[in-house]
């Protein structure tokens, strides 16, 4: 029992209004992969940030390699051999890949930076990750998934014995996830201790030895992975049984609401054609960078459209700006809620009212506060958003509740088409089910739902029809009955084939 | 210590409240006016004297100061008007309150008890004549002449420039576009140096900072160019002594302050003032007069 490399006992951490951690104890052995699981806001990231010195604990004992540590900070954590890949990207966009990898630990000779050494070393680490990136590339020019890989490379380069990965795969492609898992296994065999946080429970089977579960800032249980089941894990996380992971209701398709013809917008949106009917959920599947987000943005008027027709209820509409889309009944729940979805410094009321001011303001633009209050209250109640009152700032909510606000602001108006872009990314199982129920609710109201997701199971579980995208094009349209993971993957990778063809030609 | 700001003399009751309002608080010139006024107040013993000054030369701010003085219960105001027109309405309000007005340094277009000032235009002309004569002495009868001034909005320095230019009427000297250095000695030096590069035979500085800049540029270039300027400061006198500046027009700011307070108190005591304009004079300071 002496080979614990991390021991935390009775750790407490309070944030304004929230007890993020309540006497939590945590242990990690060398040579194991421990999955830290829990709903949104359970305190997983907070616990790991305390371990890595980002936050200071209010109370509790911390031992690293058996040695008690009083006050921790990021530098000390690094020196002690703790490396963390944070849930959010933490890259300096203006610096190169190598400069980012070695940030804070630059190699110098007599005080002068040795760029060559860092580039060479960085190149080696990237190669070890099976990544073909020039270490001198500016990070801001890389795609998000590549940036995430650089982040991983950076953590690995510290040669830390304790490695924390907070949702590392939420922005990775499946090939990259595969590469990451290979590395995790290798590191484990080399005796590293790894903490792995993810909401994608399907991943656990490939790498995890032990799981530990938090709920509402409290330690619930921990067990060996082989002795448990996903069902059991989920019930511990949620505190109750989740009967149906993908609740499905029958579709009742009536009129065609939306028709998109030959939509083009930049290199990632080419010749998009599809239709959407009342009361159905259409999933858009594809790999990272397939152009799904850009398609939804073009449809919504957030990105400029080059050509194409958008027809709603049989009438062509011109969409140049989001407001045009909103007016014609198309709304978008964007994928990055912090960046695109919420005004975090404003109140919940302000956020919900923002796109609906046309409804609650009179012709002169004067806001009717009573209507506003009613709208906010009904939205909060309908979606069961948990908050003290509607005047608190949006950024004081947990991730899941923030997501509900982003959805909620659209549901108070009578939209025809609701587009969800990765609505469940970074959201816990229970909240996910709530969001599925929400989509079903819309579906039953006769609204057309477009649903972009990178998670195959939920695409298959919720959609009535699936569009597969690759390289900015729709490569296949599948009815749910004929769809399988393999078929979707086949069409989602059509673009690789095209490159091959191109190279052979 | 706030000795540059205010000084209250004598007992509380029955003292006359006299305010000095200058254009700003920066120039040594104003400090000297204040010094003269303070001295008079001390001698008289029945004056509550305060120097109010805006932080920068600005009409609106000067008017604020006037309003503040009225609100403060002024019996008399000694004013150096930033511009002749701008302050007139404020002065009308002051007059309506029975406040006596005495101009020092620069009058406004509004009747007052007395003006103690230099005729800036005339003084500028004297500066021009000094330069012209020095040039003649070197048998220079044509060439370019540069002017370094503060800005185009301060009436007194604009008047000096006008007078300076008028001295050259009828000659073939070419007076270049005026350049403004905000009275900043370093910026003025750059401007003067550029003039010298351009091949000017003389440079005129419109105030203390402009003159210091001009003197330093000439000093560096080696003394071929004739420099004349305005105001008396230690640095300017030094430059004259070393022969880099020909002359500076020195006003007598201490006299303005001193006599100004005396006049104000005289009229407050019910006496009549016979002269409504006192030329406090300008002395031409040259190397041989030091």
């Amino acid at each position, binding site marked *: 029992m002496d080979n614990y490399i991390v021991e935390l006992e009775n750790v407490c951490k309070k944030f304004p209004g929230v007890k993020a951690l309540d006497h939590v104890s945590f242990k990690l052995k060398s040579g194991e992969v421990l999955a830290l699981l829990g709903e949104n806001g359970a305190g997983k990231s907070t616990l790991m940030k305390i371990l890595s010195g980002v936050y200071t604990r209010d109370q509790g004992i911390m031992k690293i390699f058996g040695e008690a540590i009083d006050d921790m900070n990021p530098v000390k954590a690094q020196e002690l051999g703790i490396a963390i890949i944070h849930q959010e990207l933490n890259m300096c966009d203006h610096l190169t890949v190598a400069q980012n990898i070695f940030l804070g630990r630059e190699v110098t000779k007599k005080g002068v930076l040795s760029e060559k050494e860092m580039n060479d070393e960085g190149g080696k680490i990237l190669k070890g990750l099976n990544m073909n990136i020039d270490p001198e590339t500016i990070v801001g020019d890389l795609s998000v998934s590549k940036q995430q890989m650089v982040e991983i490379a950076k953590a690995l380069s510290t040669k830390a014995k304790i490695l924390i990965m907070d949702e590392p795969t939420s922005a990775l492609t499946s090939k990259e996830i595969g590469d990451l898992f290979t590395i995790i296994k290798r590191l484990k065999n080399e005796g590293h201790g790894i903490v792995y946080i993810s909401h994608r429970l399907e991943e656990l089977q490939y790498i995890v030895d032990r799981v530990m579960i938090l709920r509402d800032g409290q330690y619930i249980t921990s067990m060996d992975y082989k002795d448990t089941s996903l069902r059991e894990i989920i019930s511990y996380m949620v505190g109750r049984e989740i009967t149906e992971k993908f609740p499905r209701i029958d579709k009742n398709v009536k009129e065609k609401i939306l028709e998109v013809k030959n939509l083009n917008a930049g290199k990632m949106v080419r010749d998009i054609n599809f239709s959407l009917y009342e009361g159905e959920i259409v999933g858009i599947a594809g790999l990272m960078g397939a152009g799904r987000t850009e398609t939804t943005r073009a449809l919504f008027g957030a990105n400029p459209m080059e050509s194409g027709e958008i027809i709603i209820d049989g009438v062509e509409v011109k969409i140049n700006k989001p407001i045009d889309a909103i007016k014609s009944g198309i709304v978008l729940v964007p994928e990055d809620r912090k960046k*695109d979805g919420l*005004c975090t*410094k404003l109140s919940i009321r302000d956020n919900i009212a923002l796109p609906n001011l046309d409804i609650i303001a009179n012709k002169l633009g004067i806001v009717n506060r009573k209507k506003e209050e009613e709208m906010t209250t009904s939205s909060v109640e309908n979606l069961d958003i948990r908050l003290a009152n509607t005047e608190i700032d949006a950024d004081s909510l947990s991730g899941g509740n923030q997501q509900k606000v982003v959805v909620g602001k659209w549901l108070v108006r009578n939209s025809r088409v609701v587009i969800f872009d990765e609505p469940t990314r970074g959201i816990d199982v229970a909240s996910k089910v709530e969001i599925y129920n929400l989509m079903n609710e819309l579906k039953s109201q006769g609204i057309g739902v477009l649903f972009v997701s990178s998670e195959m199971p939920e695409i298959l579980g919720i959609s009535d029809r699936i569009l597969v995208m690759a390289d900015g094009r729709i490569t296949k349209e599948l009815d749910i009955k004929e769809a399988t993971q393999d078929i979707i993957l086949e069409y989602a990778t059509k673009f690789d084939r095209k490159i091959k063809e191109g190279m052979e030609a | 210590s706030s000795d540059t700001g205010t000084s209250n003399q004598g007992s509380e009751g029955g003292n006359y409240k006299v305010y000095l309002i200058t254009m700003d608080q920066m120039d040594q010139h104003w400090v000297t006016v204040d010094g003269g006024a303070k001295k008079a107040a001390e001698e008289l013993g029945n004056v509550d004297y305060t120097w109010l000054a805006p932080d920068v030369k600005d009409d609106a701010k000067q008017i604020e100061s006037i309003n503040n003085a009225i609100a403060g219960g002024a019996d008399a105001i000694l004013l150096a008007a930033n511009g002749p027109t701008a302050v007139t309405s404020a002065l009308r309000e002051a007059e309506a309150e029975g406040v006596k007005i005495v101009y020092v340094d620069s009058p406004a277009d509004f009747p007052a008890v007395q003006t103690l000032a230099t005729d800036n235009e005339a003084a500028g002309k004297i500066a021009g004549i000094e330069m012209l004569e020095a040039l003649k002495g070197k048998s220079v009868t044509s060439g370019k002449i540069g002017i370094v001034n503060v800005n185009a909005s301060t009436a007194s320095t604009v008047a000096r420039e006008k007078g300076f230019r008028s001295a050259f009427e009828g000659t073939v000297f070419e007076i270049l576009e005026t350049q403004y250095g905000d009275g900043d000695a370093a910026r003025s030096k750059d401007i003067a140096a550029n003039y010298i590069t351009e091949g000017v035979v003389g440079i005129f500085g419109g105030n203390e900072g402009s003159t210091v800049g001009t003197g330093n540029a000439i000093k560096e270039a080696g003394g071929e160019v004739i420099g004349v300027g305005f105001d008396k400061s230690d640095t300017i006198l030094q430059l004259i002594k070393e022969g880099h500046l020909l002359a500076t027009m020195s006003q007598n700011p201490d006299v303005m302050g001193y006599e100004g307070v005396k006049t104000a108190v005289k009229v407050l005591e019910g006496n009549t003032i016979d002269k409504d304009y006192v030329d406090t004079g300008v002395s031409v300071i040259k190397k041989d007069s030091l």
Partner: protein
Amino acid sequence: MENKKIPSKLRRLFSKRGMGQVVTVTIGLLVLIIVFGILNPNFFSNRNISNLLRQIAPIILIGIGQSYVLITGNIDLSIGSVVGMSCMISATLMTKGMNPWLAVGVTYISALAIGLLNGQLISKAKLPAFIATLGTMTIARGIAQIVNNNYNTDSIGPGAEGFRNFFYYGKTFGLYNTIWIALALWMVFNFLLSRTRTGRHIYAVGSNIHAAHLSGVSISSTITKAYLVSSVCSATVGLVMTAISGMGTMDAGTTYELYAVAASVIGGVSTLGGQGILLGTIIGASIWGVLQNGLQFAGAPVAIRNIVIGIIVIISVLLDIVVRANKNKAKKVKVKA
């Protein structure tokens, strides 16, 4: 949950970001007033009060403009130059014999052109606000200088007495007109900011420009509107300057943009956008004005005045930060109990 009893209106008012700061600085303002009142018995005289209010009015005006722009997450460095430009344009036209009210119209139009340029450069051409308005600051000052051929204007003459009384010298119900003008504009722009769509959009853009865009807010028109408001305020102050002096002065308004930032920030408007209320701007402007007036009366030299004002700007923002941190701590304790 314990908040349930508080009426929603009050709750809304006090949960507004920046409200804490407004309360804090209001107390600060009262303290200042009391101190200066003790130092100088004249301070509370009728005359000084109305005089003081008239001095504060222009700062309130430029503060309103700057607050609008700051709330969108931008800054307007051109304020002082637009004041100068408006002063020179109006005065020049009047000296050329144009009807004063027509000249006022032309002045507002010219100022609005600068506001429009600012808004378009920033929202359409995506220039950082600091750069765009640094450019227009220099340009507008250049226009102020060139409009009367590099000279301050002559007197705008007796024909403009009505204009001068309207903007500065006249009184209505015992208060100087300048004060009424500032109050009127404050009420209009406060209503616009707190009760209308445009106002909401201004906060949303300052809080998160992307989220606002995706909520159907037109970024460019919102930012442009904020700059137009700023121009209207600056032009009004420029006209007040013309009325004060009865002439056009080229360097009128120099550094007013910084006073405007100071008034806004002291009053709780964040330079980072999305936060602040115009009530705070009034308090901030008052603190600024009371300090200037009080320190001048106290006979403090300009140097001391500068140092005191610098320290107050820093402390008032520090206070805000400290108060917010304490509020959070207090909350924590409550939760624990």
